[in-house]
Every structure is written in structure tokens, then in C-alpha cells.
């Protein structure tokens, strides 16, 4: 069982999410006295004592508007576990932030108001989290004090939660974040509920961590060459184990090599595993650079693949326009075959200008994921998850529409000056 649990939250602005997080921090004694005193002072406008939500909303606009805009990371621990909690905005406008938080989470903590049930927005976020590889879901049915601590509404909400995520690990708990019932201490007002408190669930929930048992993968970040007789490949092992003598393949070239040494500042190692950052040397003298992946089992490198994209930019996706795709440490020009609007999650075909190594997202969250960058604004515009490679005649399918257009306009020009002008016009148009 891991001693670190990464949680991410989902819930509507009015479901009391900030209050619940504040309650968790407060009841685990994770709030320093001076911060608590500051919140007490700021809570004077509130009739019912301390406003726990003020512990988490970090930006001034958030406190003024009473909403959470951006992901905030909270760090706290109990005797049993350390938690990194990504507190995400519930509003639809910020779905991209929710997807970002879910991308590294083990558990999604959902919130529902006992009077309203699981809202559409929260359902949407739960489905995104499921798509992003979250396997365990905890539903806190909040504001039980406002329904008289009655069992019936809780049962109803828990049943619809089960329908929402039929194939995932699910736990539902009735709570009152404001009063503390079933958050860190068992409620005496809901004797009909015999399950564990939210904190007990967080401390004990089991999540699969495949990183150490999966096949070895390490993307090369840097080639370290401090002296003529040393050539090391520095990177972070994203899955599996490596030992000196192991056979690895360098992708996307597909060349084989054997590991000579595992070099670290703390001495050579007889074994290294995910998520360690190491430097490997090989017996063979190969042309390996940043973006290459060292792997113990075959990887995909077809230049076309099917992916699920979460669009994160206000400017919609434009098919046929060049984007920069960053997968692991590799960066390549890419195109997608459909349009997407901000916060839209959809399947798309992706074509890259030259081969890069990747896995399917179902096999690896690390080597199966990528981001897209708009070269015009340099903004990160999409999070992508590879579904499967699309095989075919590489020369026919990998040709990118924009590259073809540029080639054609340049060829059709009569002079170099005309060619430059024509190419610039096309670039201005697509960017």
C-alpha cells in the first residue's frame, strides 16, 4: 500500500467543497494557529462562527467572488498516510483545471448536496476523471444537517452514484462539512450509517499502483557528457525496474542495447525503479538523444494514432493547423483531424510529422499521454491520451496537410522571393 495518496476533488460551487476541505485540514490539525486566527478574523461577517472555506481559497478574486478558480494543492498527513489534495474548481468554465488535477490523482473525492443529489457538472467531472485513469471514487453527500440527517435522500444519491460509475471502486458517505459529522469523527446523528468516516476511508482505500510492476520505460531528458569517455542518458524511470546487463530497446528507432551502469550522485546502483531519476550508460555506442525512450518491451511509433483530447484553450482547435506535441521529453509537429471547443472532451485522430515513441494510455499514464502547444501563443491547449495507433502506409498517412500545402505553394512560385511570400501567407493563415 502506498504511503502517499493523491486526491482530487469535484463538486459544484454550492455543494460546500471548500468547506469540506477546510474541515479535513482543520480536523487533522493541519491548519497552523496563525492562519486559523486570520480566518477567524475574516469570518466575522459570517453569522455561524468560523468559515472553513476561507482556509482554501487562495486568490483574492476567489475570496471576493466566493468561488474557486484554480487548482490549489494542499499537503497534509495523518499517522497513516500523507495526502496531496488537488482542490479543483467546480464550475464548468474550469473543467480544464479539473482534468489537470485528475491526470495525476489516485482517488476522486466527489461532492453532492444532500438536497440536490449529484449535479450534472459533477457527473461530467467524474466521467473525465474516469477517462483520465482515476479508479477509485469517494462520494461525500454533504449538508446532511439540512435534510435532518435523514437516510432516504442519502440512499437515493448513493444509488445514482453507483449507476454513474458502474465499473469503478466506489464509496459513499453522508457528511456535514460545516458541523464535522463523518468527516474525521463518526456522526452520532446518523446511527443508520455504519460505514467509515471520510478520513478513515482516505487513510485505508487501496489503489492500484502499477508503476513498479509494469515494463521498464525511461524517456531520455539529457545526454550527460562531462568527459570524452563518459556518455550517460539522464531521465526519470516512469515504470518498471532496470538492472545493469538488461537488454533495452531505444524507441522510436527500435535499436537494441544493453545497460552498462546505473549512475547516480550517491554511487552506482545494482537496480533502479520507478519513479527514480537516474543516468544510464550503455555498452553500445548508439545515436540516442532527448525524446528517445529506453524500454524493455515494444512501444508504438506509428505516426497516426487515435486519442482522446481535453481541449484547454479559449481558441477552439483547428483541424489541419500545426501544433507542437510534447510526449514525455519528445517534441514534434502534429495535426488533429477535428475541431474542439474549450473544455470539450472528444476522440480525435492525431498525425505527427515524424515518429515518436508512445504507449496506449490504458497501459501507461506517462508514456500514453501528451500535451499540445499552440506555437502562436505557446499556451498548453490540450491534454491528450492515446487510444491506439492507426496503422497504414506511413509515407501516405504521416504527411501533414500544412506541410503539403507549404511544399506546393513553394514549388508553384517562380522566384525565391515569391516562394517566401507564399509560405509566409500560408503560415499566417494556419497560425
Amino acid at each position: 500500500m502506498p504511503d502517499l495518496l493523491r486526491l482530487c476533488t469535484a463538486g459544484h460551487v454550492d455543494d460546500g467543497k471548500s468547506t469540506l476541505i477546510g474541515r479535513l485540514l482543520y480536523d487533522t490539525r493541519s491548519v497552523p494557529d496563525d492562519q486559523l486566527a486570520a480566518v477567524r478574523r475574516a469570518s466575522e461577517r459570517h453569522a455561524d462562527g468560523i468559515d472553513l472555506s476561507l482556509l482554501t481559497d487562495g486568490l483574492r478574486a476567489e475570496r471576493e467572488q466566493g468561488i474557486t478558480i484554480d487548482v490549489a494543492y494542499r499537503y497534509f498527513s495523518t499517522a497513516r498516510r500523507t495526502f496531496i489534495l488537488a482542490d479543483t474548481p467546480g464550475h464548468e468554465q474550469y473543467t480544464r483545471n479539473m482534468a489537470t488535477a485528475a491526470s495525476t490523482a489516485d482517488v476522486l473525492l466527489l461532492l453532492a448536496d444532500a438536497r440536490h443529489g449529484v449535479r450534472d457538472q459533477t457527473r461530467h467531472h467524474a466521467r473525465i476523471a474516469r477517462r483520465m485513469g482515476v479508479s477509485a471514487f469517494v462520494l461525500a453527500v454533504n449538508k446532511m444537517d439540512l435534510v435532518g440527517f435523514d437516510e432516504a435522500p442519502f440512499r437515493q444519491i448513493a444509488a445514482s452514484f453507483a449507476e454513474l460509475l458502474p465499473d469503478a471502486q466506489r464509496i459513499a458517505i453522508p457528511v456535514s462539512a460545516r458541523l464535522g459529522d463523518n468527516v474525521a469523527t463518526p456522526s452520532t446523528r446518523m446511527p443508520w450509517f455504519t460505514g467509515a468516516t471520510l478520513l478513515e476511508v482516505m487513510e485505508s482505500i487501496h489503489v492500484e499502483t502499477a508503476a513498479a510492476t509494469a515494463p521498464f520505460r525511461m524517456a531520455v531528458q539529457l545526454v550527460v557528457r562531462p568527459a570524452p569517455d563518459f556518455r550517460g542518458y539522464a531521465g526519470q524511470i516512469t515504470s518498471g525496474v532496470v538492472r545493469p546487463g538488461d537488454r533495452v530497446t531505444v524507441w522510436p528507432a527500435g535499436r537494441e542495447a544493453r545497460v552498462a551502469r546505473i549512475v547516480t550522485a550517491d554511487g552506482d546502483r545494482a537496480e533502479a525503479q520507478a519513479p527514480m531519476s537516474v543516468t544510464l550508460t550503455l555498452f553500445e555506442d548508439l545515436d540516442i538523444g532527448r525524446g528517445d525512450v529506453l524500454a524493455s518491451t515494444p512501444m508504438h511509433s506509428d505516426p497516426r494514432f487515435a486519442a482522446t483530447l481535453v481541449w484547454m484553450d479559449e481558441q477552439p482547435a483547428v483541424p489541419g493547423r500545426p501544433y507542437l506535441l510534447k510526449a514525455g521529453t519528445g517534441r514534434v509537429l502534429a495535426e488533429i483531424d477535428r475541431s474542439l471547443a474549450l473544455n470539450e472532451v472528444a476522440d480525435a485522430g492525431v498525425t505527427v510529422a515524424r515518429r515518436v515513441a508512445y504507449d496506449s494510455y490504458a497501459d501507461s499514464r506517462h508514456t500514453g499521454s501528451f500535451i499540445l502547444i499552440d506555437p502562436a501563443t505557446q499556451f498548453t491547449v490540450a491534454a491528450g491520451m492515446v487510444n491506439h495507433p492507426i496503422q497504414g502506409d506511413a509515407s501516405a498517412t504521416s504527411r501533414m496537410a500544412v506541410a503539403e500545402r507549404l511544399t506546393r505553394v513553394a514549388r508553384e512560385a517562380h522566384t525565391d522571393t515569391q516562394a517566401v511570400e507564399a509560405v509566409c501567407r500560408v503560415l499566417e493563415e494556419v497560425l
Partner: protein
Amino acid sequence: MSLDHLRSLEASSIHVLREVAAECARPVMLYSIGKDSSVLLRLAQKAFYPGPIPFPLLHVDTSYKFREMIAYRDQVAASLGVRLIVHTNHDALQQGVQPFAVGTQRCCGLLKTRALLDALAAGPFDAAIGGARRDEERSRAKERVFSVRDRHGQWDPKRQRPEPWGAANTRLGAGESLRVFPLSDWTELDVWRYIEAEGIPVVPLYFAREREVIVRGDALIVIEQPFVPLRAGERTQRVCCRMRSLGCSPCTGAIRSTASSVSAIIAELQAARSSERQLRLIDHDEDGSMEQKKREGYF
């Protein structure tokens, strides 16, 4: 929390440092002499081993830092053989800028924020690596690991790039620069546990001993600058204390403590009920004041 958790934090931070070195044209590492900088420096040594640290260090010196800090800084730079750039806003100092003359906000603005932006422009540096952590302060909890600043060095919290799977987007538009925070996911306790595990030397100000201080509310002000005024009825006294966070001597209070070793500090933190930056006066000059300073270009 086991050593494994520390080692996975170490691995992620090394990953971030290597991404900066691989993708940024002219990075620099901010070195503020404190415990977080000391950890960052150790991580940089590890990240590029057996090669040297491929970027210089930059210290923005307000001239009001504790004297022990400066002595320690020069000793560290010499022993590691790294290039250390020290930048000071001499113009402002000549005009008599100090916290009691112009107020803490304006003093920080000129001696830290302005000086930092000038030093980055002088480099010129396209990426500044710093030791800030998300658990320090609530606006920092919203900070990215790779955080973009506009041409004026300013932070726009609403235009932050998403970082799914921790993916680093180091691309910059015209005039933009990056701030990179490899210690984002570390807590204060993680930092001290790592210092203990690695035997990293730190400035002796962190360790408790008797010091000559003014007792002012919860804060103990160590007297180093002649301009710190004694209020009516105040006098200096000897108190056993230590610094929990290092800044400028007039604006950073010590805490009462008997923790004179790293292990004693860890034990003290586990029992602590107040936050690390509580006695950094500049964080509290108004509501949301760290956010405001960050928007203006403060690290």
C-alpha cells in the same frame, strides 16, 4: 512518511531541473541562502552528476540580509565552484530605502522585486529556478511548476498554463520568461527531513541559541541594522531562539526555541501549531499581499 516519499520528491525535482537545462536557453537558479535553496542546490548537483551544474546562481542581495547568511553564501559558492551572481539595487539604497523609511511594501518592491527583474534582464535569463513551495502561502498553492511571467515579470493567475501529468511547457512568447519551482510539492517538514537524510549544511541562524532580540508580540527581532527603532518601553534582551524562515533582518522574526540540531527542529515542527512564514512581516501588510507581490514580479 518514509524515506521513500522523500526519494520520490527528490526524483520529481531532479526531473524538473533537467527539463529546464534541456529546454531553456539561459536558465539561472535563484539562491536565497535559506534551507530551501540549500536543498535545491543539492538536487542540482545530483541532477547533472557526473557533470557540473549547467547554470549560474543568482542572489538578490537587499544588503539587509543577516550577516551570517552572507558569510555562508560566499563559503558555499567557493566550495562548489559554481558561478554566483550577486545583484543589489544600489540606486535605491543610495536614496536611503529601508523598511522603516519607506514602508515594507515599497522596500520589498525596490530591493527585491525590482532588483530581481533587473538582474534577470541583465543576464539575460529566460528561466529563473526558485525554491518556493506550495505549502508556504495560499497564493503559492495555486502556482504552477513552470510558471510564465509577462514582459514586466508579472504573474497573471488567470492565464496559467495547465500542467496535466506534470508536463513541462517551457515555450515562451516574446519578452516572456519562466519561473520554475522544483520544490512545489515539498512541505517544510520534507525539506528538513531531506536536510537530515543528506547531511546538508544550513545557515546556523536556523539553530537555537541565545540571541540579543527585541520582543515584539510573537516576534523576536534580532538587531542587526542600526535603523530598527525601539518602541516606547522596549529594550533588547537575551532569548534562546532560532529563525524558521530567513529574510531581511529587520522584517524577519525569530521564534522561541531550544532546537539546536536538525533532528530537534524536525521534532519541533511535528509539534508546531504556527506556520512557517508567520513572522515574515511582508506577507501580512494587507490581505492577499503575497498574491499582489507575485503579480508585480516578486519571486
